[in-house]
C-alpha cells in the first residue's frame, strides 16, 4: 500500500562519494496520495504534500518536488493529524493536586510523561496532538498545554482551566456550592494576579468546565460578565443553548462519545454548527480509547452534521480553539508536517490508519 521510491542521486555521484551539499536533508520528502484533504473542506485528487525540515512547504495539485527528494506514493487518503481538545493521556493521574482547589499557575505540560505508551496509542489512531487538561475535581486546575504525540509542546500556555461543574464542588473544602464557586472565581479574576490577569485581559483563553444546561448557562453568564474568551467543555447538551453561547463568543468542546451514550450529545454538534459556534471534540484518554474520537464524529454525522464540519472539528477548528491554528490542523504550507495516511476517507470509520508523521517524522506504520 505504501511504496517508497527513493531517488538517491547523491549516492550515485562520480566516485561514489556523496556530495554533501547536494544531499537533501533526511527529513525532506513528498507524499502523493489519491486524495489529499488540505483542510477547510478542500480535497485534491492525486495531490501532493512536500515536507521539508518537519514543515509542509507545498501542498495541493501542482507541487514541484525538488530533485533528490523522495516521493512516497499512497493509494489512499492523506490528511492532517487529528487534535483531541481535552485529554489526560500520559499523565498517570498526576493531573490534579487535591491539596488545593485553585492551582492556577500549575502547568499541565509538566504532568506529561513523554515516553508513555499512551502517546503511541494516540498516534496509531491518527491523533497527532492533544490538549493536556487537568482532572475534573479542581476549581482551577492549571494551564493546559497543546502537545504533540511525540511529546513536543506546541503551546505550553494554551488555556486556563476553570470549573463551574458540580464535580469540582464535591471535595470537603471551599467551595462546595455554585454561589461559592462563582464568588471565589469572580474575586480571583477581579484581583487579576498571574494567570488570572492574562485570562481577564483576554490574553489567555479559559477552558470552562460545565455539565448540565444550567451550568452552561451559568458559565456563559460568567464569561460574559468577566469578558473572558475561550471554550466550554463537557456539556453534551450545549447545542440547546447554542444562541447564548454564540452571543458570548465562546467555543464548545464536546465530551467524548461512547457507544450507548445519549444521542442528544451528537445532536448538539448539529445545533452548534447551525448557530455558527466553533466546536471540537474531547477525547479524555486513557479512560477512553483513542478510536472514540472518530467514533464521536461519525455519531455526529449520523445525527446530521455535515462531513466537512465534522472534519474541521477534528482538525483546523480544533486547532483554532486551542489557539494553535498557525501550526497544526491543516496541510497548508508553513504548517507542521503532522500527516496521517489513511486507507480511505478519514471520516469513514472503516478507513484505517496506514502511517502517521509528526513534524515530518514517521511515528506509526509504513513499510519498514
Amino acid at each position, binding site marked *: 500500500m505504501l511504496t517508497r521510491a527513493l531517488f538517491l542521486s547523491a549516492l550515485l555521484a562520480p566516485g561514489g562519494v556523496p556530495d554533501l551539499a547536494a544531499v537533501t536533508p533526511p527529513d525532506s520528502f513528498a507524499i502523493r496520495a489519491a486524495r489529499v484533504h488540505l483542510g477547510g473542506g478542500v480535497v485534491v485528487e492525486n495531490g501532493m504534500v512536500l515536507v521539508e525540515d518537519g514543515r509542509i512547504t507545498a501542498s495541493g495539485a501542482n507541487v514541484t518536488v525538488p530533485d533528490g527528494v523522495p516521493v512516497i506514493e499512497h493509494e489512499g487518503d492523506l490528511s492532517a493529524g487529528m487534535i483531541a481538545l481535552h485529554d489526560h493521556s500520559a499523565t498517570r493521574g498526576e493531573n490534579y493536586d487535591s491539596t488545593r482547589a485553585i492551582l492556577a499557575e500549575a502547568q499541565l505540560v509538566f504532568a506529561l510523561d513523554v515516553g508513555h505508551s499512551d502517546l503511541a496509542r494516540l498516534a496509531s489512531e491518527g491523533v497527532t496532538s492533544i490538549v493536556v487538561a487537568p482532572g475534573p475535581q479542581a476549581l482551577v486546575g492549571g494551564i493546559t498545554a497543546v502537545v504533540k504525540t511525540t511529546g513536543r509542546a506546541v503551546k505550553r500556555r494554551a488555556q486556563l482551566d476553570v470549573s463551574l461543574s458540580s464535580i469540582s464542588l464535591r471535595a470537603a473544602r471551599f467551595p462546595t456550592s455554585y454561589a461559592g464557586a462563582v464568588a471565589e472565581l469572580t474575586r480571583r479574576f477581579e484581583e487579576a494576579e498571574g494567570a488570572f490577569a492574562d485570562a481577564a485581559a483576554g490574553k489567555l483563553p479559559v477552558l470552562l468546565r460545565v455539565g448540565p444546561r444550567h451550568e452552561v448557562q451559568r458559565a456563559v453568564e460568567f464569561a460574559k460578565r468577566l469578558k473572558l474568551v475561550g471554550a466550554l467543555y463537557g456539556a453534551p447538551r450545549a447545542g440547546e443553548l447554542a444562541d447564548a453561547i454564540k452571543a458570548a463568543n465562546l467555543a464548545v468542546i464536546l465530551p467524548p462519545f461512547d457507544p450507548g451514550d445519549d444521542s442528544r450529545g451528537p445532536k448538539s454538534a448539529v445545533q452548534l454548527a447551525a448557530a455558527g459556534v466553533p466546536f471540537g471534540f474531547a477525547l479524555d484518554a486513557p479512560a*477512553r480509547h483513542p478510536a472514540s474520537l472518530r467514533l464521536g464524529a461519525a455519531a455526529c454525522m449520523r445525527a446530521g452534521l455535515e462531513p466537512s464540519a465534522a472534519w474541521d472539528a477534528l482538525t483546523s477548528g480544533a486547532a483554532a480553539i486551542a489557539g494553535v491554528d498557525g501550526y497544526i490542523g491543516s496541510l497548508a504550507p508553513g504548517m507542521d508536517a503532522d500527516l496521517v495516511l489513511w486507507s480511505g476517507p478519514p471520516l469513514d470509520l472503516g478507513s484505517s490508519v496506514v502511517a502517521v508523521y509528526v513534524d515530518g517524522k514517521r511515528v506509526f506504520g509504513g513499510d519498514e
Partner: protein
Amino acid sequence: MRLFATWLACSLAAGAAASPIFAPDVRPGTAQEGETLFIKAGRLIVKPGEVLDNAQVIVRGGLIIEVGTGLAKPEGAREIEAAVVCAGFIDPWSTLGVDAASVRDDRTGIATRTVDAIDVFSNDRLRLETLRSGVTSVRTQAGDKSKFGGIGAIVHVAPGTSREAVVVLADANVAASVGLSRGGRKMDVFDRVSEIDKLISEIESGRKYEEDLTEYEHELTEWKVEVAEKEAKLEKDFKKAKKSRTKKVEEAEEKGKEFKEKKYKDIKKPKPPKFDLDKEIMARVARGELPLVVQAHRAGEIRELLDLTEPFDRLRLVITGGTEAVAFAEELAERRIPVIVWPAPLGTTRADELSGHDLGLAGRLADAGVRVLIGSGGSSASRDLPLLAGVAIGHGLDRAAAFEALTLGAARTFDVADRIGSVERGKLADLIGLDGPPLVSTSRVRYVIVGGEVVLTPEN
C-alpha cells in the same frame, strides 16, 4: 398501522406528560397492514456477494414477494426509492427491549425465557434511533451477564403492542457466561473452573436426559410389544384357560377349599425420566437444536470450554466476547464456532475480563477463517452497531465480512436465515434504503421497513 398508532399514542403519553395528547391522524400512504410497496434501488444488495443494479423489490403482506430488475410497479403500490437497498441489520448480542432489571438479573436459569421479559413499550426514543441506524432485528437476552441467562429471542425492533407482534423467533439460543467479574470481583482460577464445570455438567445432564428419554421411549416400545404379545397369547389361550378354570373351581368346591385365582405375572411398565424443564432445554442444546451462546473472554476459559465441549458432537457453540480468542482461531474455524465480537473503543476503565480488548479482534479472527459476528456487547445500544462495525472494518475486518456479519451471518447462526438477513423472495420485508454504501460512516439511512411496514422515511 393500528399497532403503530397505539404505540405512538403511548409514546406521546410517556414522553411528554405535559404536552396534550392527540389521537394521531391516519394519513393515507403510510404503511397499512398488507400495504404493497414497490422499492426501487439504484443498487440492491440481495445478499452478501450478490448485487443487482437498478433493481426493484415488491413487498406485500409483510413479505418480499418479488425481487429483480425490470419489475413493473403493481397498481396502488407505494413507491420508495433509494440509492442503495439492503437487508436490515441484525444485532446478535443485545438486550434491547428487555427491562434493565431482567438484564441485570443474575438468578436467571436455563429455562428463563427472554420473551417473558420483553417490554415492547420500553424506551421509544432508543428504539426509534435503533431503527434510524438501520438495525431492524436483535437477538435479545435476559440475564445477559448471568451464569445462565436462559433462552434468548430474535425480535424485531419495531413498533408493536404485543410480544407476538415483534418476536421473530422465541427460542433462539441458550445463553451462559463464564469468567465474568461479578460485582467488581475478579475471577480466580477456582471460580473459573467451577463455572465451566457447572456449564458442562448441565450440557451433560441434558444429554443424559435426552438419552434417558430415548431409552424410555425404546423400553416403552418394547413393553408395548411384549404386552401385545401376551394379550394375544391370553386371547388364544382364553377358552382353554376358561375351561380349565371352571374345572378347577369345581374341584375346589368339591374339596371344600377356597379357589385361588391364578395370577398373571405383570410386565412392569417402564417409567419416564422425571420431568425437568432445565434438562429438557439442555437436551435441545445437546442435540444442536438450540445454539449455546457462551460469553467467555480469557484464553484459559476459552481453552477449557473448547476442550470440554468437544465430546458433544452435535452441540452448536457460539462464543461472545472472546477477548483472547485469537489464540484459538484455527480451532474455532475448524469446529465452525462463531464468535460475536464487540468492537467498542474501550479506555482503561473497563471490566477485568476485557483487559487486552483489541479493536482488531474481528479482523484477525475472520482472517483465520472464523465466522465473525458483531454485536453491541449485550447492551441496549444496538443503535450503535453500524458504528461498531465501522470500527471493526477500520481495524482490519473486511468490509464484506462485516456486512455479512450484520445480515445473513447473524441470521444463519440463529436459524432465522429463512426469514430475515437477505432480500429474497418469501422473506420478511426488513429492508433499509441508504444514500450510499452500507457501513460507510458518511452514508445515511433514508428508509427503514420492518415486516413490510415503512417505519422511517427521510421526511420523518
